[in-house]
């Protein structure tokens, strides 16, 4: 039995263009009290935009209802478990929103003089201090607008340091279990990417790494725990190999939510790292931002951090632009300030013990799912996992059902799919990350659903292949959509003719 409530299954919604009827509008202006003039004569014909053919004409209440109805179709973390592995879809506590909406913070303007911005600067300073305590690093910039932006900033810092030593070097090493943004970052920063294969435990191979590292290597970019959710237990040895050749260790901190309160990258050899505030510190996630990707560094990289830097002068906060070795700005002003406020609210609301408990709960939840689903789904890497677990579809694929098909069937059970086909080192991956957000009840619902699907595949694989059934739109032709995309709605008849 499907025990999740879904909304408005039989409801469907026309496109707003199709709801249009000529002459309707959402507003009425008062009559002109000045003489009308021809805009083309006043501004020049080239500055007057043509009417947009087919532009929807619709009333205010219809517009509101259209978009409100559409919004109820979304699946969101506020509706239930969102098990997208690697994405860390955790709950955004309402206290974050309360604090971010306080007038003094919400209405602060970046051009306010420093003397009137002391509170906002204190928020930045407090979050910096928290980041340093949590990561064990020496200095941090909160400017980068998201994780990948942080990566790019971090590698620019590495390049700047190596250039100051006389040679920026040529290559960056990236394990094959890395996030796709890592090689992209290295390439954007002008480095050649060299892939390193993982060993059978899904870990970096220390001996292989030693063979790759020479005086041409600028850095290793390592995600820890890696995308299998496995802690790189040889990280200290790996860091030593890099450091012995004058190279840096960059840690992709995307999975920092598995370490907070338990281990500090600054203590295991990391020189520079980024943190995704939306993943670890519960700021809103998705929709293209705004995000936050602080970059934390060891002291030797500190002179190169982006300007401005926060400094104390005459017992006041002050923004220091006089930093000759800085890589410059990476973003306007001081980062996405509203996001920084939310992250600090989360950290202070939890306190040290609370943050550590959140980490432990995330680990417990992932391991509980692993334990319960292991009899039904293949576990390609059996190393102990932390905050996420990666199964493969090997058993189900023998009956013709692949990870993407299982994910689609999961929608019928009222859950957002897990991450499909990633990490790429696992063939047919099912990547599941429950986060600390979930209660035992919600996790058990998810586990029951997955087991039920596994049984359906044994008895009726064809039925599973046809899923989802319980959605407004059934199985989408992904191949057709990618090969022959229709990206623009066109009226059946041009509006000018329809109006005749």
């Amino acid at each position, binding site marked *: 039995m499907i025990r999740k409530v879904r909304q408005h299954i039989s409801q469907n919604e026309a496109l707003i263009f199709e709801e249009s009827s000529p002459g309707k509008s959402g507003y009425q202006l008062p009559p002109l009290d000045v003489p009308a003039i021809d805009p083309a004569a006043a501004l020049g014909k080239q500055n007057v935009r043509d009417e947009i053919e087919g532009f929807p004409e619709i009333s205010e209440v219809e517009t509101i209802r259209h978009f409100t109805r559409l919004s109820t179709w979304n699946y969101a973390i506020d509706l239930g478990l969102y098990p997208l592995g690697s994405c860390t879809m955790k709950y955004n506590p309402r206290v974050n929103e309360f604090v971010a909406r306080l007038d003094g913070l919400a209405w602060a303007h970046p051009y306010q003089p420093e003397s009137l911005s002391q509170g906002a600067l204190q928020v930045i300073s407090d979050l910096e201090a928290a980041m340093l305590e949590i990561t064990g690093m020496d200095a941090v910039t909160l400017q980068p607008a998201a994780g990948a932006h942080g990566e790019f900033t971090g590698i620019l810092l590495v390049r700047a340091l190596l250039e100051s030593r006389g040679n920026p070097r040529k290559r960056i090493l990236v394990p094959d279990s890395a996030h796709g943004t890592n090689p992209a970052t290295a390439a954007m920063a002008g480095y050649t990417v060299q892939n390193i294969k993982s060993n059978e435990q899904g870990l970096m191979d220390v001996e292989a790494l030693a063979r790759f590292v020479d005086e041409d290597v600028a850095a290793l970019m390592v995600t820890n725990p890696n995308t299998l959710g496995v802690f790189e237990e040889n990280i200290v040895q790996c860091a030593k190999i890099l450091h012995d050749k004058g190279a840096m260790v960059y840690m992709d901190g995307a999975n920092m939510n598995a370490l907070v309160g338990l281990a500090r990258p600054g203590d295991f050899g990391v020189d520079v790292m980024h943190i995704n505030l939306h993943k670890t510190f519960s700021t809103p996630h998705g929709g293209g931002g705004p995000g936050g990707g602080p970059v934390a560094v060891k002291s030797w990289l500190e002179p190169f951090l982006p300007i401005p830097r926060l400094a104390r002068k005459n017992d006041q906060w002050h923004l220091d632009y006089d930093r000759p070795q800085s890589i410059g700005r990476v973003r306007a002003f001081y980062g996405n300030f509203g996001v920084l406020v939310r992250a600090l609210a989360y950290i202070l609301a939890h306190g040290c013990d609370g943050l550590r408990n959140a980490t432990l709960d995330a680990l417990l939840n992932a391991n509980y799912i692993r334990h319960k689903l292991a009899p039904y789904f293949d576990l390609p890497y059996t190393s102990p996992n932390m905050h996420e677990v990666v199964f493969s579809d090997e058993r189900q694929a023998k009956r013709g059902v692949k990870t993407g098909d299982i994910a689609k069937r999961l929608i019928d059970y009222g859950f957002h799919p897990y991450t499909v*086909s990633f990490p*790429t080192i696992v*063939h047919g991956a099912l990547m599941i990350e429950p986060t600390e957000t979930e209660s035992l009840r919600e996790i058990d619902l998810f586990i029951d659903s997955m087991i039920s699907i596994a049984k359906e595949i044994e008895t009726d694989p064809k039925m599973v292949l046809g899923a989802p059934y319980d959605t407004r739109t059934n199985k989408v032709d*992904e*191949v057709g959509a*990618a*090969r022959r995309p229709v990206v623009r709605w066109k009226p059946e008849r041009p509006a000018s003719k329809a109006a005749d």
Partner: protein
Amino acid sequence: MSTYPENFRYTKEHEWAHLEGGVATIGITDHAQAELGDIVYVDLPKVGTKLEKGHSIGSVESVKAVSDIYSPLTGEVIEVNEGLASTPEQLNHDPHGAAWLVKLRVTGDDEIKKLMSASEYQEYVGAEG
């Protein structure tokens, strides 16, 4: 199980090369297309591009992922399979034939000898699983 033409040579990255009179035709293997799944887009270099062995020729995009294609040999691109732009699905149907990617005028004959034979490649993909 697919059959790999005996007169082709193969790479670990799942490209094939067929050398005839100083011109090598390059493509991806049947194993590669099967792993990628439905291919939806192919990005190829321009005629005249000079390629080094092991460097990227371009990429193929499937519903699942985008993958780089690496040149098995060093040489200059003299012909590109333009038809693939509009019918990328050919790569799923005939990867060893009609869906070749580029033709290279190769600089030497030695490089190709280092690539795998059909039986070696068959064994390699068997082992890779």
